[in-house]
């Protein structure tokens, strides 16, 4: 197959970037979009040019490293799935494909298509954990957990931390990411002791990183490779309201 590409090139965080045109002829239909970029890069290097920088690692949709906006959609048009799971047979022969980084102010561009998502780590550091020292854990079956609760918790825990939710959101809100972690832990009895503290700290960290707020556009849910439901955002709001009420009541 043959494609025309418009790819975002940007030297570093402080330089201005622009879309650059490339031809991508003779691309196998079974190749993934990232493999297509590998082929383009190999040709660029042999032609004496600098290759396009882009992030990826596992290339099977689980590590959350890849982070491209393709034709205006975070992770491209084949939902659900990370962009590493996007295959060229999904495009028309001869199509022009626009490849950009995730565009979020809190994810500054490092180079070309690579962005800095350390803000997500800092939100988890604020409280996205259960304090459980190795050595002090009780017997695993000592607290039965209803299957329904653990299944729902798992649905939230499946988040791959890619940040597509923020990239797709008109407000650059990362609430789906935060909601997934808060819900995963709040749905388990083990998460109970730190439940109030956790949600308040994580929401504050999220705001401090400069992400916007949710206005229910559901773009996040539409692009989420892990199919995290936006209803977890409702849960996050509930958890947050309860926590702040409790706090103001002096609990």
């Amino acid at each position, binding site marked *: 197959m043959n494609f025309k590409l418009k790819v975002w090139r940007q030297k570093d965080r402080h330089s201005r970037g622009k879309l650059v045109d490339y031809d991508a002829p003779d691309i196998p239909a079974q190749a993934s979009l990232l*493999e297509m970029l590998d082929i383009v890069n190999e040709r660029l*290097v042999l032609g004496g040019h600098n290759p396009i920088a882009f992030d990826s*690692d596992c290339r099977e949709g689980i*590590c959350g490293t890849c982070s491209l906006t393709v034709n205006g959609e975070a992770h491209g048009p084949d939902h659900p*799935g990370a962009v590493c799971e996007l295959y060229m047979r999904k495009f028309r022969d001869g199509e022009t494909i626009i490849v950009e980084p995730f565009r979020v102010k809190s994810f500054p561009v490092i180079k070309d298509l690579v962005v800095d998502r350390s803000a997500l780590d800092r939100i*988890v550091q604020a409280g*996205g954990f259960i*304090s459980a020292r190795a050595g002090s854990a009780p017997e*695993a079956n000592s607290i*039965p957990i209803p299957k329904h609760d653990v299944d729902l918790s798992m649905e939230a825990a499946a988040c791959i931390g890619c940040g597509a939710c923020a990239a797709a959101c008109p407000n650059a809100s990362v609430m789906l990411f935060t909601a997934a972690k808060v819900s995963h832990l709040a749905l388990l009895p083990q998460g109970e002791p730190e439940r109030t503290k956790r949600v308040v700290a994580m929401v504050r960290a999220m705001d401090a990183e400069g992400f916007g707020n949710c206005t229910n556009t559901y773009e996040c849910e539409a692009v989420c490779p892990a199919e995290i439901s936006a209803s977890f955002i409702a849960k996050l709001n509930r958890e947050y309201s309860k926590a702040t009420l409790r706090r103001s009541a002096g609990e």
Partner: protein
Amino acid sequence: MIGNFDARVPSGPLDRKWTSHKDHSRLVSPNNRRKFEIIVVGSGLAGGSAVATLGELGYRVRCFCYQDSPRRAHSIAAQGGINAAKNYQNDGDSIYRLFYDTIKGGDFRSREANVYRLAEVSSNIIDQCVAQGVPFAREYGGLLANRSFGGAQVSRTFYARGQTGQQLLLGCYQALCRQIAAGTVQMFPQTEMLDIVVVDGHAKGIVTRNLRTGKIDNVAADAVVLATGGYGNVFYLSTNARGCNVTATYRAYKKGALFANPCFTQIHPTCIPHSGDYQSKLTLMSESLRNDGRVWVPKQKEDCNKAPNEIPEADRDYYLERKYPSYGNLAPRDISSRAAKEVCDEGRGVGPGGRGVYLDFADAIKRVGEQTIRERYGNLFEVYEKITGENAYHVPMRIYPAVHYTMGGLWVDYNLMSNIPGLFVIGEANFSDHGANRLGASALMQGLADGYFVLPYTLPNYLAGQMGKRPSTDHAEFKKADNDVRAKIDNLLKINGKRSLDSIHRELGTLLWDKCGMARNKNGLEEALRKIPELRERFWREVRVPGDGEDFNQSLERAGRVADFLEFAELMCLDALARNESCGAHFREEHQTPEGEALRDDENFADVFAWEFQGNPATAGPKLYREALHFETVHLAQRSYK
């Protein structure tokens, strides 16, 4: 040799060794722990759990990973599950059985004491993970669920859908994040270790490169822990993430650490078949699928091009069930992989190029319904459909073996310390627990065992004698390592040839897959040993590495890793040639039973092979040390899964 080559296995009965070892190990008191700096390279299950635990204990820890976040380490991709001897199923499991299955699965090429300890702490891991909030699958009564895995006749595998590695890693990552917030751990993402620094015979630091800025840094510490995973990407195509590499362990080897059993590489039987040269990686389909999927090929070559549903039951060869009736489709990985190769070599493979076998769910769907299969493996079926465009609920999956895991790694003693004092190696990066073949769901178990429950006891034993011995980075050894690292980068950037990195790496991978893959023989290995140095020479003459060193330069990162693979490949083939027997995943065609199974030679090869670097491989081959394996408890038997 730096340090010494003593396994330090404690004396006493097998089931008392670990307890008595802990009782007699030296400790570091709480107010002294903050005086020690520890470097951990890698943030996967082994590294992440070690960092979180050491931080919690009060040590000052610096953790380095090449990914942009510690949560992205490749442990995240493990699908199927984690073993533990809980015996929740009341089906006869025990610590001894998990130990025995693991040592037998490894074809009797691992240390009894290490494996027993692994089985012993396995239950604690599940407790720890549940306490952290890992959402393991549960039954309706709210208790934990299990599934079966290859090489076992009990159900002892805990799982979280097909994303067990992800959930376990997020557990570690969250514990790690908590320590970062608490100030005990400093995290250095997008930072690669390029050398270790040995001062007066002890590992006391590393040289790193910040991948974002290109800045080279020297870091001193009281001990260095490598948790950098396996070297499967030496084959170019594997199920490993693109960034997985041998650089940290190989450069430690070049500094004097012994490399053990490098030829023990696991080829996983259930991967999506290879489809073309453009392909950048292979994708695993979890072994858990073999609980419900039946593996078959047509009995007749002529049927291979027919649609699978047009081939009647009587014309199908369910070859695993036929050859290994008591384990059937759950035969261990090495055996299942070779059986797939064998039927494909006979011309009975299916799909493009005839390199594939069917994994069929039709019977299971008939038995338990499509909905149940969807609940068990839904995400795997989706991945399969994404890649191949086929719906495996209606047509059987096509699978073929692919490189997946490496049992070999840096040699370590019972304390997980390499021969270089102060250099600890944990998880897949060491060689210790899986012998010549790893059983499914045991990698996650080993990574977490090492990080949560072994290293936190054995590291203090070393540190207790090291108070105040941390050198400054002004030490001459740091200067030397720093210069070497810079020189290597300059050399790579200077080549300016006309070939791409991938084309050379791919050529290396094809050579290894053919000569040092699922089956090996003397002639093939000798041929590979002739060709690898030639290829290496061509690399240093012909490759093109664009850009410069003071920048975010992904080509340069990869070039350094490929250069190391090109040296390491030779060590792997040398090891495969020297091990003149078959065992586990190492199948030397010269040594097989009449039925075509691996034929061990316990008299001559019940050893660990540990190699010492002797300088330029072109002029001096590595020196071989052999650690004899003593089996005090198990009886060495021909492995049979019939």
